């Protein structure tokens, strides 16, 4: 709760600071219309107005020192496994290029409603929950060397998480090469809904190290290459997830996608909770290629991932965005993700004379799967007579996921629609 209040307080301070910056207009001629004050076009004579002063009389606007941007987003997620999530979010960015500092704050709420097969198979019919999350970040880079600090929190009735971290950046070769090194520490407290954390909780700590190099390849191309090492320690087993057990003879006949009714009919009486390993080292190497054409941008991303649980994955992402005049931006998006299962993954765990398997899970995101995403998006820059510093838009992504070795379901169709609103302050 203290973290939430701190973040909300910081957000309010930043909003007030941004408002103050926006309300300090640059010098403008007395003839300038109020709506133009503060905009880069404030001193430009209106060619369509017969009362406009001659251009020689217009004084140039002083450049604003602090630039701000406020962004609102409303995202709605739904899938064929009866999970719905609505996520409104707000973020604020402030930057002073001459002094070399920037600040960022964000806050979001997840309203989740779920009746997935995992919930139904646990004899629970429906479940709703609200999650709040936020963060703040500040950077200071007066010269080639820069530092940054960040903190974030996530809160819901049965899960608390906070994290903090820092980065160091160094520009080389007249900003044609930038190195970044970062470290983050996070702490999660995993509980059960309706039970105080003091009665039941698991702790999970996370030490994250990352590094990246940004290379300006030519006047239209940037390449970023990075790596992440994340060390997780603690019990991250889901306290609601029960794993069905079968006798060895029956388990061999359990096919992928076996229904809840059939599983309940064939499984043994024992149904232990999920148990995951208490340590996980995660490695990711990723690259990002950005190229700007005359009126379009291509973004390509690839991430290779492996961890000590034996999960290997590849995620490929591409976006192509086209300008249509001064106001429109049309975007397309494709993504493909494939992963192998963790080493202790089994579709049907067996109960033998040796007892219950020490490691067991029903989390299908730890199983073998692939997913393909296709999406479109649009942005429209508002303001008259020229586009000024605000825009609205939306994106729609549809994802098909194929679960290759799971109980209950073999695929999932999901969609996420996003409405975005941005304005310069």
């Amino acid at each position, binding site marked *: 709760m203290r973290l939430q209040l701190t973040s909300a307080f910081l957000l309010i301070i930043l909003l007030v600071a941004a408002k103050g910056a926006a309300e300090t207009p640059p010098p403008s001629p007395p003839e300038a219309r109020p709506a133009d004050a503060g905009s880069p076009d404030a001193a430009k004579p209106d060619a369509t107005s017969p009362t406009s002063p001659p251009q020689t009389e217009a004084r140039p606007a002083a450049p604003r020192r602090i630039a701000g941007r406020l962004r609102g987003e409303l995202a709605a997620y739904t899938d064929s496994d009866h999970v719905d999530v609505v996520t409104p979010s707000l973020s604020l960015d402030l930057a002073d290029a001459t002094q070399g500092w920037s600040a960022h704050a964000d806050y979001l709420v997840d309203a989740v409603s779920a009746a997935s097969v995992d919930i139904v198979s646990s004899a629970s019919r429906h479940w709703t929950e609200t999650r709040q999350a936020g963060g703040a970040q500040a950077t200071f880079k007066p010269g080639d060397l820069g530092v940054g600090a960040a903190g974030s929190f996530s809160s819901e009735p049965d899960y608390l998480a906070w994290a903090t971290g820092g980065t160091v950046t160094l520009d080389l070769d007249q900003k044609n090469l930038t190195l970044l090194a970062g470290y983050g520490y996070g702490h999660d407290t995993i509980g059960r809904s309706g039970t105080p954390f003091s009665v039941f909780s698991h702790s999970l700590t996370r030490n994250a190290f990352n590094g990246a190099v940004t290379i300006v390849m030519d006047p239209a191309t940037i390449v970023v290459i990075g790596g992440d090492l994340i060390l997780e320690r603690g019990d991250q087993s889901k306290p609601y997830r029960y794993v069905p057990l079968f006798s060895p003879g029956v388990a061999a006949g359990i096919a992928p996608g076996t229904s809840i009714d059939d599983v309940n009919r064939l499984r043994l009486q024992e149904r232990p909770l999920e148990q995951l390993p208490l340590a996980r080292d995660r490695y990711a190497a990723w690259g990002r290629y*950005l190229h700007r054409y005359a009126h379009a941008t291509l973004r390509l991303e690839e991430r290779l991932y492996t961890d000590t649980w034996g999960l290997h994955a590849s995620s490929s992402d591409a976006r192509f965005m086209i300008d249509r005049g001064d106001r429109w931006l049309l975007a397309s998006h494709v993504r493909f993700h494939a992963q192998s299962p963790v080493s202790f993954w089994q579709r049907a765990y067996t109960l033998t004379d040796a007892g219950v398997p020490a490691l067991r899970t029903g989390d299908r995101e730890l199983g073998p799967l692939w997913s393909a995403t296709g999406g479109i998006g649009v942005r429209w820059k508002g303001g008259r007579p020229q586009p000024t510093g605000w825009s609205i838009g939306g994106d729609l992504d549809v994802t098909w996921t194929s679960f290759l070795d799971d109980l209950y379901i073999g695929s999932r169709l999901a969609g*996420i629609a996003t409405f975005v609103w941005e304005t310069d302050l």
Partner: protein
Amino acid sequence: MIAMAPTAALARKALSRVLLLVVSLVTLGGCIHVRPYQRERLAHSTMTTADWGGPGEAHARAVREGATGGGSAGEAGCGCN
């Protein structure tokens, strides 16, 4: 735990290859020098080196994919209990 040893070896091998790639690209980057006045296209808003997706998309991805990485340090856990 014995079964995880090959994974660590694979990870080390993959990281070695990535480091080699980084060194190669850094060397290549040094051959081309883009001056400040040549950066008009690089300054376009779509050329940000940060993740382009918003927080809703990023969270859905974090929950629905078993992998992670490519974000920034200091992110809180997903809360996907």
